[in-house]
């Protein structure tokens, strides 16, 4: 019962802020609403008992990605003057079509995999302890994640070198 109430509140926050994020005219407000959506998702993870995943969600998305967005928006200057650019009918139609296609794809994936039947059975806290996660991440065994982990770190290194080359003094 308590879980259902919390789930409904979180779902309302996620949906409401998601709609607000795409309908608002000011870009900084959109970033803020997006952050509420990400917090709501973190709340869902906590509700299911995946505390590590929830903390990562708060750390990476709320603490990292949204801060980066806000920083970038602050540096690019204010552009939330009431701009009146009208959208053509063809564009509106295309947007509607894309939205319907996306919604259909998601519904198909959710229904065909029967997620709805086995959600909301909260796993116990021991299901994904940090110890198990860490050992999986660094094991080179059959289901180990050492190779993807290293490949991701090489990708990040390439990003760092690339940004240094772009930003260096000539």
């Amino acid at each position, binding site marked *: *019962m*308590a879980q259902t109430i919390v789930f409904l509140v979180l779902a309302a926050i996620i949906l409401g802020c998601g709609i607000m994020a795409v309908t608002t005219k000011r870009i900084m*407000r959109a970033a803020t609403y997006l*952050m509420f959506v990400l917090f709501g998702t973190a709340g869902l993870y906590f509700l299911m008992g995946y505390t*590590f995943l929830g903390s990562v969600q708060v*750390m990476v998305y709320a603490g990292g990605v949204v*801060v980066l967005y806000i920083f970038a928006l602050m540096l690019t200057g204010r552009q939330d003057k009431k701009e009146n650019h009208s959208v053509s009918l063809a564009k509106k139609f295309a947007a509607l079509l894309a939205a319907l296609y996306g919604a259909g794809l998601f519904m198909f994936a959710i229904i065909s995999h029967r997620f709805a039947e086995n959600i909301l059975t909260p796993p116990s806290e021991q299901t994904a302890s940090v110890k198990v996660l860490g050992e999986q991440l660094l094991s080179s065994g059959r289901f180990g994640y050492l190779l993807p982990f290293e490949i991701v770190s090489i990708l990040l290194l390439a990003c760092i070198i690339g940004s240094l080359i772009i930003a260096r003094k000539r």
Partner: protein
Amino acid sequence: MFDFSIISKWFHDLLTGFIPEWLVIGIECVIVLLFIILLYAILAIALIYLERKICAFFQCRIGPNRVGKWGLLQVFADVFKMLSKEIIKMRQSDRLLHDMAPFFILAASFLTFACIPWNKGLEILDFNVGLFFFIAVSGIGVIGILLAGWASHSKYPMIGAMRSGAQLISYELSIGMTMLTMLLLCGTMQLSEIVQQQADYGWNIIRGHVPAVLAFIIYLIAGNAECNRGPFDLPEAESELTAGYHTEYSGMGFGFFYLAEYLNLFICGAMAATIFLGGWAPLYFPGWDGFNTIMGYIPGFIWFFGKAFFVVFLLMWIRWTYPRLRIDQLLSLEWKYLMPISMFNIILMALVVCFGLTL
């Protein structure tokens, strides 16, 4: 040592006797929330008074001494003054974000406040990744500062917010690294377990000797920077930026920033007490049985508050002793000195733990 969870369990069982479980959880949430808010307010009052008195003593002044005995009622007078101030509305500012920004900072402060283990069995948020959660939610405060600076639509808050954002993001790395160092020593991220270990085997700062002391010093420096306090207070450097990111706030909007700043100071001290100085664990010397029994009679939360306020005093001492840094000095201190030292420190701690050199 007295285990507080006996009382909370008794209360929970008493309520579940005649109310459905979900309502019991709701009632307990409200009680815990009231407890947090009450403690938050009391600590803020105590800290502001302490800060003004300690600052005064460092500068050879007397400090507040007119309102009440030894100026004890000065803080209450200030709060009433702040509550009765006019809330200024500025043209062209984003009202919604402007009003929302202080609450982000308060939310981050409350969430980190809730992680602190006060006594044995007296924790509010305590799960297997407590320390990681603490680091994660403390990052929310940056968003509040950036939004406050942006939504004010004014130059000083904007510059203050940019400085503050750069500073907080940089120094978060050092905080995270020192916590990782201590994590290697403890082997668990659950805060209550970290303290329990220290009660059983001795305080971390003694158990981890050289790397732990090094981590403690780095934590003190980075903690002062994270709280936006001098010598790192240039986001709100009065002489250059009036008041930094909260220049355009009046009344309680400013009050919330002020409140959060002092509570962040306390949280910083409390976390240092928890991971380095043993939290509620009393001071034990192996072999001194009489001494140990006497120390064991002192309640855990008194130990905890004693240690936390000791660290707070250290932080205030640093603040009122050193002059303010320049922004490039501040960033090079973090990226060129503290970061490499704390990375080296992690390796040192790993070696110490690997070869069993802990005391």
